[in-house]
């Protein structure tokens, strides 16, 4: 029952803040309440880490006597870092909300963030596939309701439903994994997962993350992209990443793993490069999410699910920090730079353990791709950090005080989460992080030199040439790797199939339909006589 406390804390406070907003519109009390709740939730999560595993099991679900059919949640060493990351994000969102009051940040948005945190906690702690399927749907429905309630553009509403559809397909793949297990006489749970089923689960998580196959269903950005948007784009991926971390170490079915690995590598490379060259971090957020979560998928495919936690946390926390970093000046630059340190995977930093999943021993040439992807991600991150934005100085003094604290909480959350869950990060396991960091800094320095105000004409020409080439290559890569051509082909096939179905329906429901029914019956009986007669 202990696990219910944080879940209910966020859910009830979300409801209370929403009701308060309608009864007595205003910002002060709801904001203070949200800060208090998120701070309490964050602290409670640290306390719960000392008590893991914390379990919550429902009663028999259907009453059919099947032991596998019950809801089961557990906060353990795998789910805790993601649960803690969500609590950290909620805290940071509310604390930094003070700097976004001019940008539609309001109590309803905070309430929605808290509701999503609650649904996210339910999903990341789901400890069997059935519970996970229900939790995923709960989260997806919450997300789709919040999104449809906030978006105004016609095109965007449709994209929201398309994104929801992709998630539903992922959930159905999870259901399929349960059925495959049952066909093998296994009551699937997360403690013993056969290799072939592990691959189906990776596909389910990969589909929901947009990595397997690469699909950018919600490329356009939503309104309230910094506050609520951060939670909207974090809760669902966190629940998929928690599933990945539960998969067995040592790899999956060798038949399909290379195919999945190739697809994931391409997705990571493409999205990391787009992230690097993008001008607006919020517009490029879908690419960030796919690139970093793709590294987590790759880690699992290479038999190191624990390493996926390092990349998952890097996606959520340093990523969240960058996307919440709206008001900027020299004084606050320190915090996103700390976030970059959390992403750098340098030895003794939180993401360092992630290299266990990417930099295999003995050396695998494919690892070079991941090294390059990490360079692109880190360089892109640093580039976005130093890009000028709104000034913090124009805001009220109390905001100037509380806002950096919110950013700092994300850094602290990542380090605490890694301290408890990724002990390898604080041992010297790989120097490759040093290489990627140096390469990223070098790339940043070169681009800064080319773009500086005192650049020579030759430099500008060079920069223009690089930019044009980059854009052309980007367009070319985008055309291939976004897989839009696959989806167009799918739509073409859908159209063809629709014509066939319409034709059949016209025949069966037309004037001769009754006679056609008799003919089909005769055919069916003959089939049964062949297949089933004694």
């Amino acid at each position: 029952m202990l696990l219910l406390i944080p879940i209910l804390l966020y859910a009830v406070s979300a409801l209370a803040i929403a009701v308060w907003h309608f009864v007595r519109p205003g910002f002060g009390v709801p904001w203070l309440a949200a800060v208090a709740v998120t701070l309490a939730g964050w602290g409670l999560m640290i306390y719960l880490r000392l008590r893991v595993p914390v379990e919550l099991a429902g009663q028999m679900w259907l009453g059919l006597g099947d032991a596998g059919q019950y809801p089961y949640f557990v906060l353990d060493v795998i789910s805790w870092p993601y649960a803690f990351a969500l609590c950290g994000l909620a805290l940071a969102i509310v604390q930094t909300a003070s700097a976004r009051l001019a940008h539609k940040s309001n109590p309803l948005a905070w309430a929605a963030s808290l509701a999503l945190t609650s649904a996210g906690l339910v999903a990341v702690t789901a400890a069997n596939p059935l519970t996970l399927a229900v939790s995923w749907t709960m989260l997806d429905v919450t997300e789709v309701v919040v999104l449809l309630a906030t978006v105004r553009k016609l095109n965007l509403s449709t994209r929201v439903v398309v994104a929801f559809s992709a998630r539903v397909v992922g959930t159905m793949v999870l259901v399929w994994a349960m059925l495959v297990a049952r066909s093998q006489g296994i009551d699937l749970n997360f403690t013993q997962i056969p290799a072939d089923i592990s691959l189906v689960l990776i596909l389910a998580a990969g589909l929901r993350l947009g990595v397997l196959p690469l699909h950018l269903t919600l490329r356009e950005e939503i309104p309230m992209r910094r506050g609520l948007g951060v939670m909207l784009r974090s809760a669902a991926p966190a629940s998929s990443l928690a599933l990945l971390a539960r998969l067995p170490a040592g790899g999956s079915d060798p038949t399909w793993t290379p195919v999945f690995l190739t697809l994931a590598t391409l997705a990571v490379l493409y999205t990391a490069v787009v992230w690097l060259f993008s001008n607006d971090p919020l517009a490029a957020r879908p690419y960030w999410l796919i690139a970093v979560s793709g590294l987590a998928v790759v880690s699992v495919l290479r038999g190191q699910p624990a390493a996926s936690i390092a990349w998952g946390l890097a996606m959520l926390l340093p990523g969240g920090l960058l996307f919440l970093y709206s008001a900027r000046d020299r004084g606050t630059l320190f915090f996103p730079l700390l976030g970059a340190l959390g992403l750098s995977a340098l030895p003794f930093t939180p993401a360092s353990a992630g290299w266990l999943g990417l930099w295999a021993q003995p050396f695998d040439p494919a690892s070079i791709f991941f090294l390059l992807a990490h360079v692109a991600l880190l360089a892109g991150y640093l580039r976005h950090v130093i890009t000028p934005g709104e000034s913090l100085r124009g805001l009220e003094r109390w905001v100037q005080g509380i806002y950096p604290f919110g950013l700092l909480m994300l850094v602290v959350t990542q380090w605490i989460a890694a301290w408890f869950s990724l002990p390898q990060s604080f041992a010297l396991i790989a120097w490759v992080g040093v290489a990627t960091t140096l390469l990223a800094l070098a790339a940043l320095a070169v681009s800064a030199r080319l773009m500086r105000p005192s650049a020579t004409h030759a430099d500008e020409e060079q920069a223009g040439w690089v930019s044009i080439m980059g854009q052309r290559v980007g367009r070319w890569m985008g055309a291939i790797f976004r897989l839009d051509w696959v989806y167009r082909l799918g739509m073409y096939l859908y159209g063809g199939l629709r014509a066939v179905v319409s034709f059949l329906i016209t025949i069966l429901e037309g004037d001769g339909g009754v006679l056609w029914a008799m003919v089909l019956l005769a055919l069916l009986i003959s089939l049964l006589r062949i297949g089933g007669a004694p």
Partner: protein
Amino acid sequence: MSAPLLFVLLPLVVAVGLYFARARRWLVVVLAGIVCFSLSALALLAPIDTLVQIGPISFEIPSTLLILGRRLVLEDGHRPFLALIYTTAGFWFLGSMVARANRLFVPMGLAMVALLVAVSAVEPFLYAALLVEMAVLVSVPFLAPPGKPFGQGVLRYLIFQSLAMPFILLAGWSLASIEANPSNQALYGQAEVFLGLGFAFWLAVFPFYTWIPLLTEQSHPYTAGFVVTLLFSVILLFSLNFLDTFAWLRSSTLLFQSLRLVGLIMVVTGGVWAAFQRNQARLMGYAVILELGISLLALSLGIAEGLNLFAQLFLPRIITLATWALALAILQRQPGFRGFSDLRGLLRRAPVVGITWMLAYFSLGALPLLAGFPVRMVVMETLASQSIGAPLWVMAGNMGYLIGGLRALALMASGDDPWRISETRTQIAMLVIGALALILVGLFPGVFVPGMNGLLEPFTRLR
């Protein structure tokens, strides 16, 4: 007063009275509601064939009524069925005010319910074929009200349901011959063919299901939903009589193979047809086809494994179809609504009806969290434990069906109108009740669903 008198003849008499009072819509609806809920409460509280003592008053409800030389028998084991059917009818009649069903619906609907109860009560049970035919005939006036064109859907419904009657009666003749001459193997095959054809027509089994989408499209969706829900519920339960009575049928592998094959065809075709559908009312028809297919698949799992699942499918199906029919009726009455393309932006213009319709849709698509998922999941798991092929097809059909819903959702979500609630308070209340029921049953199936096992009580040899 015997149970058949209370549960069959009394509502029939009330239905006749309500027919003459049909001009007073509110009165008719309230009276029908009171009768249905009273009968439902009676079924839940009063045992049959047992002396009940309340203070100084004692009474007993006998189970049997002799009528025209036949017997109507409603035993204690029928009480869950009676409670379910009258509760369903009660809610459906109350909702008819909101759904704006035609004036004939409530009186004729009540008569149909009474006749369908008689189907479960009549002995010898082969006379049920005549009662089903009467129920079908009674339903025609409210499916195609006087003065409105008699559509293909109603016509085919009438044709196929009427074709079932002679086959069931011929099956009865064959079964009687088997009892007289059990060693004649040819008679078994004959009986199987007649029974199979009879039930194929009754249950709108592939390829006889074309009338369902036609009916939901051409008739008022609320009345069409009522007919397909109650008629199929009663016939599905009635089919168990045959399995209960004839041991050779229970041991027939061909029967269960046929159920599996036909069930799969219905799930796959219903799902695939739905994926390409551009008519919101026809989608309900395909959902019914898919759901019937799932029921047949549950039955195909065999007596030991499938029967409880078969019974447990009733509750989510009834709740979902009732909610769906109500939402669809309200949706089609939205100002300016003419067809599927007018769904565009509906979520912003009428969010309660849009959301409720989608919840009902996805519930029958077995989306986790909703009423249709828990039992469907167990059915698929049990199928998977026998062979992975069948659940693969079920998943394929289900995905097709979900695509149909997602297309409708995308259309409803598009548009940039401002948000506004255009539904009336009564409509909102009824829709919210339906939506909550879908979510509650989906989240806590263990509380609600196992009660449906009581539907199997009359079938003593199957338990």
